[in-house]
């Protein structure tokens, strides 16, 4: 079938199963937008390209499908960069289509020209600049294959405008060779047997669950393993939604703001089964004192993660959807009651805690309030900062892919557009967003997008009138110098929301919370609740950056 370039792009998108894309048009993108017109593909017009990138990310994380976003050349494309880097750090499958100036104008500093290939090379899983129209269909479908296979990630396809007018054959097409790209699905079962043997001999084993378990959709299998073995388990930020938080031997999140029990467990276990994690510095603390007398077994799909941060004793390469069922089958039931008792003691002696005040709301109370009324399949989205850590600590998510957060890159402004993407991917599920008064302002224009599509996102602005996490560090490590971390001009977020057609209310006193929670729960459209909380509350416990995990401030 011979098609015009723009129609060829639309046809390939349809063949890849794409029904929704997020984007923003502009000069050189117009031919592609013309092909999208009445194409049957739903296009969500965000109010800023960064919003489109994060929305595609939220869509992908919530659904497991490849998220697609689209922009024009130059500034349109550079506005996507933060979203691409965010997805890259957290292994989110995305295809990013950027339109480019015509081939004849390339490299001439033309109007709205930016070297998208050069800019996105270090922050994407892979990227393409299409110069020969006959390769366009192959490159676009390869982009989907690369984005979703192996360790997922964002793939950028940069398409010069003139290609949209070329006549392109899309069925009998030439292929670009990719001899070296053979993602591992199945590793060696013998590697698993070695770990199982070590597990049988371990006295103090511990499971450490990361985002890889979510990506591989292995939460059910993990639950089976836990039920069979009673193994204690901890999670990284991105692994939180993979673990049943009601499980008796679940110890919570590990790391800088992890629970006492989780940090003590990882520091005292004798065998750590690390699954789909990458030993981020926010998890390990001082790497030389991390899990000192522990044998580490690392399960991952990406060979370059093995030994990147820490030397491991055993490695199992392969997709967790291949390895975890085998571990579950082969693991034997062991008597680890003494170890479990120790962990339970740590858990009961050092629970997460905060001291409520009479009048002022504490941020933790707001998050617990939401946690109590979440539907079982609700999706919780966070922005970045203190509220993100409190959400990780106090908000029990009950469904896999039910906790979306920018982990690796820590992108402020991620939350609102990601929640939009999640709600569009999962229209029948509740989507709750926690965001700070700093982060909401970074992409607050997307309230208009939520309003336009009447997306019933429940937005809680945890308002401490400034940059809470920055202030916490300034209190702890910079003699309380609040350098550039207070918002002196009060912003009326309810009025901003109202102006964009989003229902809103402000809660300044404790007594208003209950009512606000009910309003949020029952809202049929987007609702923003600006909750004024204590300004100077700290996220605790905390391990100072670079300190060992056992040095906890409680």
């Amino acid at each position, binding site marked *: 079938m011979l098609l015009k370039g723009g129609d060829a792009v639309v046809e390939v998108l349809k063949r890849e199963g794409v029904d929704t894309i997020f984007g923003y048009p502009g000069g050189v993108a117009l031919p592609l937008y013309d092909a999208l017109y009445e194409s049957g593909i739903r296009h969500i017009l965000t109010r800023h390209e960064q919003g489109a990138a994060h929305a595609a990310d939220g869509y992908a994380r919530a659904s497991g499908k490849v998220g697609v976003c689209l922009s024009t050349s130059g500034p349109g494309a550079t506005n996507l960069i933060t979203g691409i880097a965010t997805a890259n750090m957290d292994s989110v499958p995305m295809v990013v289509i950027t339109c480019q100036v015509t081939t004849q104008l390339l490299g001439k500093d033309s109007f709205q020209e930016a070297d998208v290939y050069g800019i996105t*090379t270090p922050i994407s899983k*892979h990227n393409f*600049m299409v*110069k020969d129209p006959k390769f366009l269909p192959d490159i676009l479908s390869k982009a989907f294959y690369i984005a979703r296979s192996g360790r997922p990630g964002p793939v950028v396809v940069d398409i010069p405008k003139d290609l949209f007018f070329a006549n392109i054959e899309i069925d009998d097409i030439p292929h670009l*060779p*990719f*001899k*070296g790209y053979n993602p591992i699905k199945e590793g060696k079962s013998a590697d698993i047997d070695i770990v199982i043997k070590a597990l049988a001999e371990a006295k103090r084993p511990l499971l450490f669950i990361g985002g890889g378990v979510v990506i591989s959709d292995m939460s059910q299998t993990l639950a089976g393993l836990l039920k069979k073995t009673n193994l204690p388990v901890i999670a990284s930020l991105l692994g939180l939604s993979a673990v049943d938080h009601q499980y008796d031997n679940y110890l919570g999140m590990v790391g800088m703001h992890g629970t006492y029990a989780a940090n003590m467990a990882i520091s005292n276990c004798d065998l750590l089964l690390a699954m789909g994690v990458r030993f981020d510095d926010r998890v390990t603390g001082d790497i030389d004192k991390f899990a000192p007398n522990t044998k580490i077994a690392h399960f991952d799909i990406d060979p*370059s993660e093995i*030994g990147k941060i820490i030397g491991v004793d055993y490695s199992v390469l392969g997709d967790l959807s291949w390895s975890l069922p085998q571990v579950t089958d082969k693991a034997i039931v062991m008597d680890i009651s003494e170890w479990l008792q120790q962990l339970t003691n740590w858990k009961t002696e050092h629970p997460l805690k905060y001291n409520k005040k009479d009048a002022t709301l504490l941020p933790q109370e707001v998050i617990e309030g939401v946690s109590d009324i979440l539907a079982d399949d609700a999706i919780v989205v966070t922005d970045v900062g203190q509220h993100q850590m409190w959400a990780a600590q106090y908000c029990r998510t009950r469904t896999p892919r039910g906790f979306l957060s920018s982990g690796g890159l820590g992108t402020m402004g991620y939350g609102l557009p990601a929640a939009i993407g999640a709600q569009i991917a999962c229209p029948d599920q509740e989507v709750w967003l926690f965001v700070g008064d700093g982060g909401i302002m970074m992409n607050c224009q997307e309230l208009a997008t939520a309003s336009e599509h009447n997306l019933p996102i429940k937005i809680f602005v945890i308002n401490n009138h400034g940059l809470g996490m920055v202030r916490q560090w300034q209190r702890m490590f910079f003699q309380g110098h609040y350098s550039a971390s207070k918002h002196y001009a009060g912003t009326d977020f309810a009025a901003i929301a109202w102006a964009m057609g989003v229902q809103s209310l402000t809660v300044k006193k404790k007594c208003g919370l209950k009512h606000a929670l009910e309003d949020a729960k029952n809202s049929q459209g987007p609702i923003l609740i600006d909750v004024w909380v204590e300004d100077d509350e700290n996220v605790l416990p905390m391990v100072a950056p670079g300190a060992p995990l056992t040095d906890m401030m409680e």
Partner: protein
Amino acid sequence: MKNTISVLVENHPGVLYRVAGLIARRGYNIASIAASSTEEENITRISIVVDVTDERELEQIQDQLAKLVEVIRVVNMTQIDHISREMALVKVNAGEEHRADITNLVSIFRAKIIDVHPDTMVIEATGDVGKVNAFCEMMSKFGIVEIIRTGEIFISRSHKRLIDN
């Protein structure tokens, strides 16, 4: 410790930029890098000499390179029997009083004089990196005007091709 790595990549536009960018942003210490076409039209071969502190760092470099979508194969040549060569073009001060000495050294090192100017000579020296270093050292006492080196390239002694291994 110095290690030699051969990388076979798809001959796509921008692939060298990709490999060099990875090495730069991950902070690896590169002694030399050389890229060229091969017996296969679609494959480029990149020879890299890296300076690493330990085995783990070396493995990381190899794994990170292998992770690039367009990288077909990464081989640590240090572990296999191989031959390495580098070429240098040395422009050296060669006034009349030194010409005989220089010519003599060129002959000892089995190098080649490829251009002569009244005041200078250009010499082509080929060999393993030790020999090229030694030759440049000997030339330095006459005063080197400029020098250019290709970086080391290496090939295995096995009858097999790297791509077929």
